[in-house]
């Protein structure tokens, strides 16, 4: 097991190097000069542009810029945003917020999705199953910004149950509404996935054996059916967690969550290379870690899977 983990971590190093290089190249190749954009509709004198380019090393060829960046990273210096804040500080203030938002959303979609999926699967073809299908289809087909705006309008402005946007410091109670919005989309996926998996497992021999052994339904369902149905669901949850960590831009914008998606979007618009690269690097790291954890979780869920050696 330990050997397996070490191997996976070592594998992550070239992946990380490769992605930073790619991302750096893409930011560099982005058309348009961020320095010119700093001046709005006004045109700055060329000498001032030159001086600013020099300051941000933008006058160097790409490969030199990349190695300056890489060298700084090894010294623990991720660079400085245009507003003078160290990128490491930006990371430290935004990632915990998004992490909490993602965790909350995962929690909501897991609880709701697995419950609904399990019931639907056990009572296949019933009224509950049919209505769950309809609801899932509606949720899957709604774009997230529609859900977000409607939820914000009804629960935030009309009913006043939640704060319309996330307050300073992103307290947990403010994150509930955006997390519910994020959860709606994946809830549908998870409930469908669980349902199919439960139906599949229920028809397996070992379930029939357990039933004929005289085990009660209360034991068969959680231990034999649910546990064995969860493998595809866990994979999906892990992928979804990765997506939530990087892709909540729209929801974070609508609810003004000071998290990764909103900050990264602004950095891209402003052409702040160091911020973009640092953020994406950390995202890749998270993705790698989450995937490793999922693989380890398989072994826990299904004893037949072993990472021996």
């Amino acid at each position: 097991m330990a050997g397996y983990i070490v191997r996976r971590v070592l594998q992550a190093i070239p992946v990380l190097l490769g992605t930073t290089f790619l991302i750096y190249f893409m930011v560099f190749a982005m058309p348009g000069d961020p320095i010119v954009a700093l001046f709005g509709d006004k045109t700055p004198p060329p000498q001032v542009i030159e001086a600013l380019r020099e300051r941000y090393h933008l006058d160097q060829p790409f490969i030199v810029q990349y190695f300056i960046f890489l060298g700084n990273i090894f010294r623990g210096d991720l660079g400085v945003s245009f507003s003078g804040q160290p990128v490491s500080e930006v990371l430290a203030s935004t990632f915990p917020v998004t992490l909490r938002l993602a965790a909350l959303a995962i929690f909501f979609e897991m609880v709701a999705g697995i419950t609904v999926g399990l019931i639907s699967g056990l009572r296949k073809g019933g009224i509950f199953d049919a209505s769950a299908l309809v609801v899932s289809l509606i949720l899957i087909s709604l774009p997230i910004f529609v859900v977000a705006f409607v939820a914000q309008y009804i629960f935030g402005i009309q009913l006043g149950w939640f704060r319309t946007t996330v307050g300073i410091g992103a307290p947990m109670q403010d994150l509930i509404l955006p997390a519910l919005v994020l959860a709606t989309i994946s809830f549908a996926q998870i409930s469908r996935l669980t349902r199919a998996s439960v139906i599949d497992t229920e028809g397996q021999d070992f379930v029939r054996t357990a039933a004929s052994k005289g085990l009660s339904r209360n034991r068969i369902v959680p231990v034999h059916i649910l546990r064995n149905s969860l493998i595809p669901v866990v994979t999906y949850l892990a992928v979804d967690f990765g997506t939530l960590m990087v892709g909540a831009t729209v929801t974070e914008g609508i609810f003004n969550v000071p998290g990764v998606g909103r900050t990264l979007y602004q950095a891209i618009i402003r052409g702040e290379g160091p911020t973009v690269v640092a953020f994406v690097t950390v995202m890749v790291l998270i993705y790698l870690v989450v995937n490793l954890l999922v693989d380890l979780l398989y072994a826990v869920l299904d004893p037949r899977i072993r990472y021996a050696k």
Partner: protein
Amino acid sequence: MKIKRIGVAAIALAAAGALTLSGCTSGAPSSTEGAGSSTAIITTNGSEPQNPLIPTNTNETGGSKITESIFAGLVYYDVDGAPHNDVAESIETDDSQTYTIKIKPDQKFTNGEPVDANSFVDAWNYGAALDNAQLNSYFFEGIEGFSYDENVPELPGLEVVDDTTFTVTLAQPESDFPLRLGYTAFKPLPASAFDDLEAFGENPVGNGPYMLDGEGAWKHNEKIDLVVNPDYDGPLKAVNGGLSIIFYATQEASYADLQGGNLDVLDQIPAGALSTYQSEFEGRSVNQAFSGIQTFTVPERLPHFSGEEGKLRLAALSKAIDREEITDVIFEGTRSPAHDFTAPTLDGYSEDIPGTEVLEFDPEGAAELWAEADAISPWSGSFQIGYNADGGHGPWVDAVANQLKNNLGIDASGAPYPTFAEFRTAITDRTIQTAFRTGWQADYPALYNFLGPIYGTGAGSNDGDYSNPEVDSLLDEGLAETDLDAANEKFQQVQEILFQDLPAIPLWYYNVNGAWSELVDNVQYGWNSVPLYYQVTKSE
């Protein structure tokens, strides 16, 4: 068993949700005082400053909203844009070239350092020096000794006479120099700022009506808290307890917060709410012109747009656009059709300058002019207007293109660039091969600011490379006048020529659209669209 546990968790969650409901409706930070409390904090919208908070390096609204509040300049602008002395005691000149500036005695920065002549001269020298690459450096280019080619650490044109007096010598007369002095770039800095300007930009120390609420008041990407500066005793003395500027990434989020009662004063309305916000916030909203104009520029270097043919075609384009209809339909009446090249809030503005008819909608006249131009050289190809797709310009560019198509019978369309940076780069390095949208928001309230920097030969923002010696000499004459009215007369003569040449085609003036909550009173929006925060009162 697991299922039951999940059920318990769901119930616990619902209970937790119910608990938060009672806790989250209290809304904005509150004060305990009665009506018009002098300790109440006004919450308002802003955006994360793009640069450290140093006045000479702050040129966008997110940062300048803060620097304007924490620094007091020599002059300030009232709600109509008229300049009045703030820190300055007097600003005198005989020839519009040498200015003697006296500042009020015994002024202090919030760290106790004195505000004296050196505070201004040192700050300006820093802002002007090439090596410091300050975004606002071009504001100092008129001062004697300024150079873009070599680093000048101390401008010979700035001279400290005594503690409260300094002189400014310009390279040539500029009558509107005193008008500029309220702009962010001209604010003073304490001597201690120069020890470590980067640290200073994170925790700036000023002399304005507000100051930072302690070290680290700037919570990046979230908000900045300002409290009243008790030492400030100028004309902008605040009647509230402070300002909390919340950074929003989208206009929609800030509007939702106003609707939800979490925000007091808003100075932007998202496009989707433009048609409804005035009725939703009846008596608590604003829709008024401010100092900004939208235009589009057809560079002379494009085929068919030079010489006599070009003039005919430009006039035809201008007359073929129904500005009234677009401002009504696309902008819901939140823009005002343009009648000149400047803005209606400015001193000396007139909507009856000879030649302004070319901005009136006249489809027949337009078609005739276009036909005349065709007689010189037949039109070929299509007419395109470039714009940045990330700024919400698509709808109006398409509308303009459609009107050109219908009224001139030519193929016209918008040419979007994905990002602002890409768009501006194509304009700056002159690789753009179409017409393009241009706009101007005043740095300081003066006609010259809308003319000199854009239409003077070789001027910084002359993106269309327009050049007309007559315009240049009239601009110089206007600047050399010592009397502002006489100067404005010259500038209006410049506009008469511009109406003939149309180096840019004026479309409409920007409006400020804003609204405020029931808790606040006395909300006014300034000439530059920024609310006059110091006079807002808030009750609880």
